[in-house]
């Protein structure tokens, strides 16, 4: 397998792995709670991209029936199911971000900080 074939086949998956690692790294390393919320969004987006990526095919078109192609050749269309699944996952991700930010607003109003160390001290 040549490098260009490898990149065309698997390159995007390595980028997605990179995104997942950035998300998890942010969750582990950042002490600011808002940055943790951002890392969560990155992690969820990476998984959404993973699903969308898995639907792609070479030389295939959008999954809307094309009069010229007909409906009997599934290899001519990319797989629509992961996209529809990810519509739901995007809704879930938005809801999670919304709840996270609402919680952080409450935390900031009550304790005046979102830094983990200061927060733990003020919670005593």
């Amino acid at each position, binding site marked *: 397998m040549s490098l260009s074939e490898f990149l065309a086949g698997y390159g995007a998956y390595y980028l997605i792995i990179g995104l997942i690692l950035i998300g998890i790294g942010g*969750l582990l390393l950042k002490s600011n709670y808002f940055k943790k919320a951002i890392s969560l969004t990155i992690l969820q987006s990476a*998984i959404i991209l993973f699903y969308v990526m898995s639907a792609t095919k070479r030389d295939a078109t959008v999954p809307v029936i094309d009069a010229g192609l007909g409906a009997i050749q599934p290899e001519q269309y990319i797989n629509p199911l*992961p996209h529809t699944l990810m519509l739901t996952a995007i809704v879930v991700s938005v809801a999670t971000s919304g709840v996270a930010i609402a919680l952080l607003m409450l935390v900031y109003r009550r304790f005046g900080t979102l830094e983990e160390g200061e927060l733990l001290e003020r919670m005593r």
Partner: protein
Amino acid sequence: MIGEHFPVLIPVSLLVGAVVSVPLGLWRGSLSRLVALLATGFSVVAAGVGLRHVLRAGEMRYSLGGWPPPIGIEYVADPLALFVVLVVTGVGFAVTVYSKRSLERESPQNHVPFNAVALLFLAGLSGMVMTGDLFNLYVFLEIASLAAYALVAAGEKRAPVAAFRYLVLGTVGASCYLLGVGFLYLATGSLNMADVRAILPLLPHYRLPFIALCLMVIGLGLKMALFPLHVWLPDAYTYASSVGSAYLAPVGTKVAAYALMRVWFGVFGPVAYALPIGAMLVVASVAGILVGSIMAMAQNDLKRMLAYSSVAQVGYIGLGIGLASPLGFIGAVLHILNHAVMKATLFLVSGALAYRFGTTSILPMDDRLRRAMPWTSAAFAVAALSMIGLPPTAGFFSKWYLALACLKAESWPLVAVIALSSLLNAVYFFRVLERMYLRKASAEERIPGPPASNPGEAPPSMLIPILILGLGVLLIGLANAWIVEKVIKLAIPSGL
């Protein structure tokens, strides 16, 4: 007829209740509570009738929107699913009856959204249990989780911090599960549980499904607070309001454990036994049992003690699952029921103490507590003895089946762990019982703030659920043979 639709009726009625209760509650505050009672009461009846029907006539499958299963989403009403749904809705109904006075005291302005969120939580859990579709399970998992974050956040001043940490770990868990579903879908091209199970043995190699299983186990392990993924639990249960933790603690983690059984036994089955998932679960569960019990001994707050004991109790369920034998399965499923009823009783009692005395600290308790609240104390004692595992209370029997499963697997250290953990449970519960029943009141250590005008039991709407659940602990213990023979044995997955 209505009968063939009711697998889907349980989550739908709870969801509709959640949506309807907000506008009605804003119009007349008391209506939201009425809607919550109707929705949970209806779902208990539906689950009971459904379980009875399924035990006679076999499992039922319902295709959502009329699409046949591998394409459409399927709901499966088998004995195991309806048993767990009955536990979830039954405890949910008892807590809903209890919630009124406690909410009036602890969060007077918020009871309308609180009721709606609690219904949403129960709807998510029952959907997780009933669904036969891997992606649909993820959606309901997130519905239940988002509602759970809100239930935690509605507690005391520090609750939003605990809720946010719960949210971070819970979302990571759900993301792991979702990624696992993605790998499984890439390998099999299906999301229907039964369909995936049929396709898996035909695959040429299991690289993708094994990665998927590992991710799903980690994700669901986070949701069920399996050691060492339990760190979100103690703060969340402690800082949530009394009613909030009474909703969360008995059923929240159990349904994730049920989902783990579904995925591991129901979807993967024998294919997965090449992976040491069971050994890993057993090790994590044993560590959780010991660490949870030891940490519980060190707590001076009743709710925090109960939260750590939840970590230990989830360990028992994980142990039963990890042994992957029929006896272990019986022990785990029976413990889902037992622990839900015992923990609900204990958390409701701690809520009643908070209602009367404004504190759940263990240190100032003495025998005036028992004289002021004899029935509540009795229910606490029964549930505590059951947690320790004294016959004939319910807790003894699930431990008995787990110990039998360990004996059958010839793992003597595990038997020793079960015995040791019962001793540890005895230590921390007798610490409370000793103060409640034996310690004489002394002048300097007083329970803070019992108003002199109304000493005595909590109001009937709080006391009756406590007593019914406390009685339930005894009755389940006495009826355990019937439950195991008639229900759980029918639910043992094939290939175990």
